[in-house]
């Protein structure tokens, strides 16, 4: 049933993909070759493979996750192809690696709940990855941000992977400690507060995020990590005091960073006014806004926007990675770009829905953490490129160019697929009409 819905939902996705590549080709055939149809076929192939894998290994998994992410990835590679066909070929390769990892997780990690037994190992691995990056990280494109680790000939962004590992750790850890963390001993302005001694985990993650910011010079990954943690501890404890205290701590850290870290200071200044130093520091954001504004209601059309300079370099630096949304907003307009935002909201909705229906706390926390991660990451980068919030360098999941990002996001997706498959299998087994009361509802008020 779920797989048939998935197949039907994928038809419009495939159609959009083919039409999209065809229009890019039509608009830029003088500059690019006729490889566009190949990408349409590639997507058809990838999807059929995933569909068969799911039929075999996770037949009851959520039917909309793959069509949604498929459309996001297609849109991304289409824009990358339009910006630089050579990068699209690399992205397609990473997509295949991502699908490979996805398949491996689906097959070999079907009982993902075993991860609960290894959370400390996984968490430690996640922190170590960050620590290694912080110490030995590189900055290959001189962006002032050390997020890359050179392994062999490849640059990877360990932050993308440690994000998943730490999410898994938090799901297990918070699940086991939730009753303890949920106790409140005092009130602040009527809000029940946890005992100070239980603030340890919060302070630890806060310290770690702050450390990441200081050592790696970047806001994005540290903010995202802290955000995911706050979302998950809130889900685990149902205590608004945690995200409340967390936001206060984050603001304090932000304030310190603003006055001590040049990069943070700069990002905030540019956000407040990108026009004062438009030729150098404000250039990227200003050009991003020019591109977005140029899109108007319906966009310039795929392949017709002013994305590249005469020498082939993008007008907006980092157009294919962090700023890919600016390119989409220019060429597809408000209509297309809002469609993309709504697509991400749908993705989050599926994720939170999977969390609500999951039968055990670990699965709930894991699904909610992944969904919150997708949502926050999307909000941070989109808000940044359209001047809603200060810019934080981070990729747009499934859309931006970047091997680490694509592969890691497919791994997260695989976990959501497994969780939903487990839930739906159990339901199918117990009879579809008798939906059991959600067990979480009864244990929620533990004080």
């Amino acid at each position: 049933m779920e797989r048939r819905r998935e197949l039907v939902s994928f038809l419009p996705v495939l159609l959009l993909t083919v039409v999209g590549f065809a229009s890019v080709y039509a608009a830029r055939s003088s500059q690019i070759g006729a490889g566009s149809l190949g990408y349409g076929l590639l997507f058809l192939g990838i999807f059929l493979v995933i569909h068969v894998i799911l039929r075999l290994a996770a037949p009851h998994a959520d039917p909309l996750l793959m069509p949604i992410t498929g459309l996001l990835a297609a849109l991304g590679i289409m824009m990358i192809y339009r910006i630089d066909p050579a990068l699209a070929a690399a992205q397609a390769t990473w997509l295949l690696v991502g699908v490979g990892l996805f398949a491996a997780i689906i097959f070999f990690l079907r009982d993902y709940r075993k991860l609960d037994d290894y959370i400390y190992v996984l968490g430690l691995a996640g922190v170590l990855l960050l620590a290694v990056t912080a110490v030995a990280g590189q900055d290959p494109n001189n962006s002032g941000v050390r997020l890359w680790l050179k392994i062999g000939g490849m640059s990877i962004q360990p932050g993308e992977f440690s994000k998943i590992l730490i999410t898994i750790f938090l799901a297990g850890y918070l699940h086991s400690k939730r009753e303890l963390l949920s106790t409140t001993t005092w009130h602040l302005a009527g809000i029940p507060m946890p005992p100070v001694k239980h603030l340890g985990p919060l302070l630890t993650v806060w310290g770690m995020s702050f450390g990441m910011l200081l050592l790696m010079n970047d806001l994005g990954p540290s903010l995202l990590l802290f955000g995911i943690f706050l979302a998950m501890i809130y889900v685990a404890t149902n205590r608004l005091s945690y995200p409340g205290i967390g936001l206060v701590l984050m603001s304090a850290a932000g304030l310190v960073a603003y006055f001590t870290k040049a990069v943070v200071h700069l990002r905030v200044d540019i956000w407040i006014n990108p026009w004062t130093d438009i030729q150098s520091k404000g250039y990227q954001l200003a050009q991003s806004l020019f591109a977005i504004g140029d899109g108007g209601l319906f966009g310039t059309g795929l392949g017709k926007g002013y994305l590249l300079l005469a020498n082939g370099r993008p007008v907006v630096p980092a157009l294919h990675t962090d700023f890919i949304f600016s390119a989409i907003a220019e060429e597809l307009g408000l209509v297309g770009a809002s469609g993309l935002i709504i697509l991400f909201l749908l993705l989050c909705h599926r994720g939170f829905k999977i969390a609500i229906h999951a039968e055990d706390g670990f699965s709930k926390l894991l699904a909610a953490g992944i969904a919150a991660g997708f949502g926050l990451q999307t909000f941070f980068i989109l808000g940044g490129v359209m001047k809603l919030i200060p810019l934080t360098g981070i990729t747009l999941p499934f859309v931006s160019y970047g091997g680490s990002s694509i592969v890691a996001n497919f791994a997260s997706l695989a976990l959501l697929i497994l969780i939903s498959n487990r839930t739906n299998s159990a339901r199918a087994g117990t009879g579809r009409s008798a939906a059991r009361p959600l067990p979480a509802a009864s244990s929620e008020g533990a004080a």
Partner: protein
Amino acid sequence: MNGPIRRLFYATVALFAALLGMLAYQQVVNASSLANNPYNTRKVYAQMSIDRGLILASDGTELAKNREENGLYYRVYPQGDLASPLLGYNDVKYGQTGLEHSENDYLTGTADEVELTNFFDMLSGKQQIGANIKLTLDPKVQRTALSDLQNLGKRGSVVALDVRTGAVLAMASTPTYDLNNLDADWNQLNQDPNGPLLNRATEGLYTPGSAFKLVTTAAALESGDFNPDSKFNDEKGTLNVNGNIIHNWRDQPFGEHTFAEAFAQSINTTFAQVGEKLGQDKLVEYQQKFGLYEKPPLELPPDEIAISGRYENGSLASPGAGLDPVQVAWMAIGQENLQVTPLQMAMIAQAIGNGGVMMKPYVVDSIMDRDSTVIKQTSPSGWKQPIRPDTAKTMTDLMVKVVNDGTGFGARSDKVQIAGKTGTAEVSGRGPNAWFVGFAPAQDPKVAVAVVVENADESGHDSSPIARDVLLAALGM
């Protein structure tokens, strides 16, 4: 845990709603402000990546072409300063003027007629290519006009029209500038009090003085009250109109004379009397018949074409505004705040030379695609008929007399009979504006010309030789 998960989802919805709101703000509300930001170069680059069409003179001389560099096209003007204000500039920083502005849609290939032929090119992915524009401008005539003015070293302008078609053969304005050095010279050009960027031919408003007696004469002849033999007597060289004194040139008295002699010698006292007799309505009627108070329909940008007529406090007066007899008398001799462009005066000469039919002036002969296939061809058409053919004939005779026996002797040529009218309009604070307005050959008019020189020699004869040279050049003599 479902409660907080649900609330987390609502929070996500709120964040995404903020994203959608900001996106709509940037793409709809803020879009035009972003587009007009001076640092937003996307329009300019889009414009510069177009292979802009050439501008050619009537003989195929390239007046504007492109130099390509890294896929961007830079405008080059092989003839330098030859026709700068007419061609105008197409500059990333300073915008567009002249034909580069008004013909932009053709030059960039975005005009409907051009796009039709480009459609298949577009499908096959070819770059947008602009259409070429061929002008009626004759480089020989233009060169003569410009160098005569430049040799004189004074501000001035020349307009030469084809009498039968209204085609612009020359349009010069001095001082001028080299279009290729626009960027380097920009500040200097803008601060120069002589206004080199100005197209005096169409934007320069000058007091016509005696040259305007052409219009007064047309009204006088067609009123039936006057003919070339009408008798006048001028004993004092001045005329008292309600206590206001109108002077002849150096208060010279002419004694008994005819209308034809008054025209040839440009006798102000006589024409002031004629004007008084005709009255304001008649004078204004003929001014309007000759196209004053209207924008000449030339292809230049409308804001670069001034309207000729009577001006009050710097703006065009209503033609019907009541004037007292003194003002009417002054108007008849081309004063009373009358302001005309050289183009307007050339059009008046063209109409008289063309048997009374004023043609629509035009400078764009045809639009061609890159294979020289003509996309659009201008066909000459009449604009107005200010006077009857017989009046035109009579006026031609009067104008021949001006050159042969009168004030226009400076335009005399032994190669061809030139007909014309001079004007020496007093300007307070400096030398007069010297005019010559006429056409040739008188018996079979082919070329009309208007010349104005500012701060001219007191004798007022700076213009006539220039007019002669330009007419001879246009006639190939």
